[in-house]
């Protein structure tokens, strides 16, 4: 579904990605783990076209997207829940959800999708007219995921959904992620520092270090790998 071939991305003169190659098949949950500053978020931003790669290729269902503008990439069905959630603080919960559906024109479908995410996260329904900036961290994460779902993505990119949340909330968020994958057949690309958690929900995983992919295997194998255990699982 998504093929990333040898992309190199720069911030000014600083090279953040030094040739990333990875592949995601339809219906999978793939995780990308690695330490701080490894280039995980940059990988996602490059796929979304916000920080386009200087060279290399990205194909989504056969369409080259590495030269496309972000809004065209969103229109193809790739949506990101970025690190730090990035809720529009001055828009209400409902308006945030409507922004998620920005490229859709079917008012009726948008309405029923809003009801659907309110079923998924009842707390958001209670807060529908509250400004996004006033929500708690967990609620904001729920809103960020819901906002991405509003675009009916085919590929959902999640950047550190567990960051800064209480364990109970994390569990709830990961339940939902699995549900999104199984129920609506959405392919998921999950970037996480919490490797243990990520590898438990994912089918396959990539390990990233210093702008390079250093390992790729099935999630089960990575969980059992000695190096991964030492470096990322704290065992």
């Amino acid at each position, binding site marked *: 579904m998504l093929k990333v071939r040898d992309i190199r991305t720069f911030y000014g003169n600083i090279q953040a990605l030094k040739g990333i190659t990875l592949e995601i098949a339809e219906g999978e949950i793939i995780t990308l783990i690695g330490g701080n500053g490894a280039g995980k978020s940059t990988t996602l931003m490059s796929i*979304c*076209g*916000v920080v386009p790669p200087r060279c290399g290729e990205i194909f989504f269902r056969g369409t080259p997207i590495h030269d496309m*503008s*972000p*809004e065209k990439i*969103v*229109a193809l069905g790739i*949506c*990101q829940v*970025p690190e730090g959630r*990035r809720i*529009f*603080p*001055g*828009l209400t919960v409902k*308006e945030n959800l*409507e*922004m*998620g559906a*920005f*490229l859709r024109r079917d008012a009726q479908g948008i309405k029923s999708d809003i009801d659907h995410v309110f079923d998924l996260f009842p707390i958001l329904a209670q807060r529908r007219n509250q400004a996004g900036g006033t929500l708690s961290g967990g609620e904001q994460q729920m809103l960020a995921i819901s*906002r991405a779902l509003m*675009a009916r993505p085919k590929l959902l990119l999640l950047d550190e959904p567990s960051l800064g949340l209480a364990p109970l909330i994390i569990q709830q968020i990961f339940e939902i992620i699995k549900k999104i994958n199984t129920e609506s057949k959405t392919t998921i690309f999950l970037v996480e520092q919490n490797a243990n958690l990520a590898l438990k929900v994912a089918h396959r995983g990539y390990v990233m270090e210093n702008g390079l992919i250093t390992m790729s295997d099935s999630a089960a194998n990575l969980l059992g790998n000695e190096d991964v255990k030492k470096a990322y699982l704290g065992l």
Partner: protein
Amino acid sequence: MEYFLELFLGGLTRGSIYALIALGYTMVYGIIELINFAHGEIYMIGAFTALIVASVLNIMGFGPITILILAMVLAVVYSCAYGFTMEKIAYKPLRHSTRLAPLISAIGMSIFFQNYVLLAQTSDFLPFPSLLPELEFLEPYAFIIRSSEVFIILTTLVVMVLLTLLIKFTRIGKAMRATAQDRTMAMLVGVDVNRVISTTFIIGSSMAAIGGVLIASHIGQINFYIGFIAGIKAFTAAVLGGIGSIPGAVLGSLVLGWTESFATGYISSDYEDVFAFGFLVLILIFRPAGLLGKTTTQKV
């Protein structure tokens, strides 16, 4: 009391004009964090366009209402074209450079537009026809308010209401708010940020042009330099209200308009600017972000 009312309405008129210009400053700042110093020049270009259109139509023998409408429409169209092009030429290529670069580019555009009009037209003050009709029922109150002031206040009110509706309820309005709050996230939900920025310049330019035509018609003369002065004042108003805040720009403009009007009327017209800027300093000491500005803590 009558004197007070006269000053109050005079201040409201000034404030309305400032608001029409200040909104352009504040909206552009809200979206791309740029102080568009050439914005005042767009207002001046609007006034000049209206003057040319009005003169030509007058020779051709059109009626006053037709002249007013066509002059206003063409002034808006021309100013929008200038505002749109200015952003594409002077600001868009610099969007990823240091913050100082577009600022200097803006000052350059301002000087360019002034000299362009100076060369294309003249450095003298030109008489501007009174395009706004006289309201007869106001005649007994002429010492308090003039018809043109009524038109300025009402037009500004209508423009504000339309702008509020646009920002609050339309698709592009929501996209503008989202872009102002988090540009990267707006991109990630599929907002074409370039289009939002262009639209912002177009909306700001139209309002400035409307303001330019109204005030030129009220005062009765224009030259190439009017945009600079009005621009500085409107910018002051936007800062006073909290740059980036739309209600703030309106409030700041009214406060500035009244300060100037009352200071001129009760103290001395020589000190108009002293009071205007003194008041700005005073407010910024106690509210550094402006009257309605939000103090944002920068995350590192």
